[in-house]
């Protein structure tokens, strides 16, 4: 269909799946082999952020900072000042949840290429509850000048993104990762570059711009909506900052209707970013799917995703509403 080289059947029941963070672990291991300046720093979550692969392969380039996230990122700043490419990892709720000012001053204003990895982002963290379900990380990081913000869609893309981050010796970056197994929608041939959004499915009625775990949901919704007579164009947007304005605007111009979908707060998140872009450049009707200014709670991931409206079903309902309001004789 296009040059995104996705897996053949998104709808297959036996589609492979894996936590997105696993891809980070493999990517960092590879980056470590490619460049001896790549170093790892972790705040007592080495196994669950998957930095253990790097630690075991390169113990002399790994630093265990303990449960101290302010120190975690700031030690990263010092390492970067000496020419290292530090990856600093924790749960997103703690980093960048706890250490925003250190990131702002010693990394962004100071222009040090520290790569901040926030695992266990999103509502699908599940039973741990609201304290650990980080939903505001994209907002916190997106507002900072010089910062790159990534939310890869599956483990394979996270691996590519990690290698791309390691190769970027100039910019600070934040990458959010999910805890639960996420369907693997891409293949080794699927392109990834920082700053690019990709048309994963072409359509003419509505554009959906999605990031992270929600791209799989968007693709499933697109398949089903096609049978309902709605032709959804799916844009996967793994780089939330800098936003690929050209790709999004081109699609919005074609369809005239836009939905965003993300597993986080829509305020200042991907939804916020796309709304800002369209508001200035191409005002079209839009709906944002994501957390609507509230916290999560304990529960099974699928229960929570359903309760908070973060599934393909909710994308379909939203698409129907948007069509009825604006295209099917609505105006």
């Amino acid at each position, binding site marked *: 269909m296009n040059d995104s080289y996705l897996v053949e059947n998104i709808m297959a029941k036996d589609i492979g799946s894996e936590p997105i963070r696993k891809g980070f672990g493999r990517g960092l291991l590879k980056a470590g082999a490619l460049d001896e300046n790549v*170093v790892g720093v972790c705040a007592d979550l080495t196994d669950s952020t998957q930095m253990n692969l790097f630690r075991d392969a390169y113990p002399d*380039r790994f630093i265990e*900072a303990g449960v101290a996230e302010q*120190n975690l990122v700031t030690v990263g700043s*010092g390492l970067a*000042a*000496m020419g290292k490419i530090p990856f600093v990892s924790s749960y997103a709720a703690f980093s960048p949840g706890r250490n925003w000012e*250190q990131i702002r001053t*010693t990394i962004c204003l*100071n222009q040090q290429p520290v790569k901040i990895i926030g695992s266990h982002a999103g509502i699908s963290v599940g039973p741990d509850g609201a304290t650990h379900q980080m939903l505001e990380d994209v907002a916190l990081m997106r507002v900072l000048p010089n910062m790159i913000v990534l939310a890869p869609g599956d483990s394979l893309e996270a691996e590519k993104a990690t290698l791309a981050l390691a190769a970027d010796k100039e910019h600070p970056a934040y990458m959010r990762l999910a805890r639960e197994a996420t369907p693997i929608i891409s293949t080794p041939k699927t392109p990834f570059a920082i700053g690019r959004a990709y048309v994963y499915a072409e359509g003419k009625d509505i554009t959906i711009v999605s990031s992270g775990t929600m791209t799989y949901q968007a693709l499933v919704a697109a398949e089903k909506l096609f049978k309902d007579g709605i032709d959804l164009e799916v844009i996967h947007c793994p780089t939330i900052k800098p936003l690929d304005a050209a790709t999004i605007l081109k699609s919005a111009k074609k369809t005239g209707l836009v939905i965003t979908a993300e597993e986080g707060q829509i305020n200042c998140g991907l939804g916020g970013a796309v709304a800002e872009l369209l508001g200035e450049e191409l005002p079209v009707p839009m709906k944002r799917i994501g957390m609507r200014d509230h916290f999560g709670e304990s529960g099974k991931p699928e229960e929570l995703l359903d309760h908070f409206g973060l599934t393909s079903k909710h994308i379909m309902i939203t698409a129907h509403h948007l069509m009825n309001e604006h295209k099917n004789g609505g105006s």
Partner: protein
Amino acid sequence: MTSKKFTIEELELKANEIRKDIIRMLEEAGSGHSAGPLGLADIFTALYFDILKYDPDKPNWSERDLLLLSNGHCVPVQYATMAHAGYFDRKELMTLRKFGSRLQGHPERNRLPGLETTSGPLGSGLSQAAGMALALRMNKEQFRWVYVIMGDGEQDEGNVWEAAMLAAKYKLNNIIAITDRNNIQIDGPTEVVMPLDDLKAKWEAFGWYVIDIDGNNIEAIIDACAMGRAIVEKPIMIIAHTVPGMGVDFMEYDFHWHGAPPNHEEAKKALHDLRTLHGKIRSEHE
């Protein structure tokens, strides 16, 4: 790199010239911190004119020592000392805090070559020093040191103690931290705002090698750093007891001067005091 070895008298006189420039800069800027920079002039003079390895013509020289100012609000003393050390012309000091100046109100690495980092928000310098020291260790660079100047008030910040633990854990003996123990912060005396003592015992309990000195005694500063470089297995903390507002009678020990600049009349009086101090230094060394 200073090739010349200065006498203690020469260094004391140099520190006094730096104090005069601090007064002139702050008067011209009309805002900024007075007490801390004046108190730190002896430490900065000792660092730039005796202790540190650097080349003002090659600020990124790969063998230089690294100096971080964690309490960024004291940067006027660093700017003044850097000008005296040849990084830039002293005339530029009068641009402090003005639009377009490389001498920002708080130091920014990207604006002025020779600065190693950007600081102002307190408590993060030691963490960066630890990151740099770890990188030196990984690179097997044994003869470069990371010096970090910290305020005492900034040690209210939890970040400081996170860094203290990490530096001790990794036995970063290539860090020499200097605490400017002047006992004042914005809201008042440190022991009233948030008691820090027993500061020496705290750092020792955190696994550091602690040296307690008179921070306005240049010879003591040079000796303490030399001793610090000889320590193995532990990071080094020099608690330097300084007089806030050093050399200016009406500013000394008064916390109200922590965050205020002198006006024209006050600057005149301050410069008079510093000229008197100049005479005193000369006669002491006769």
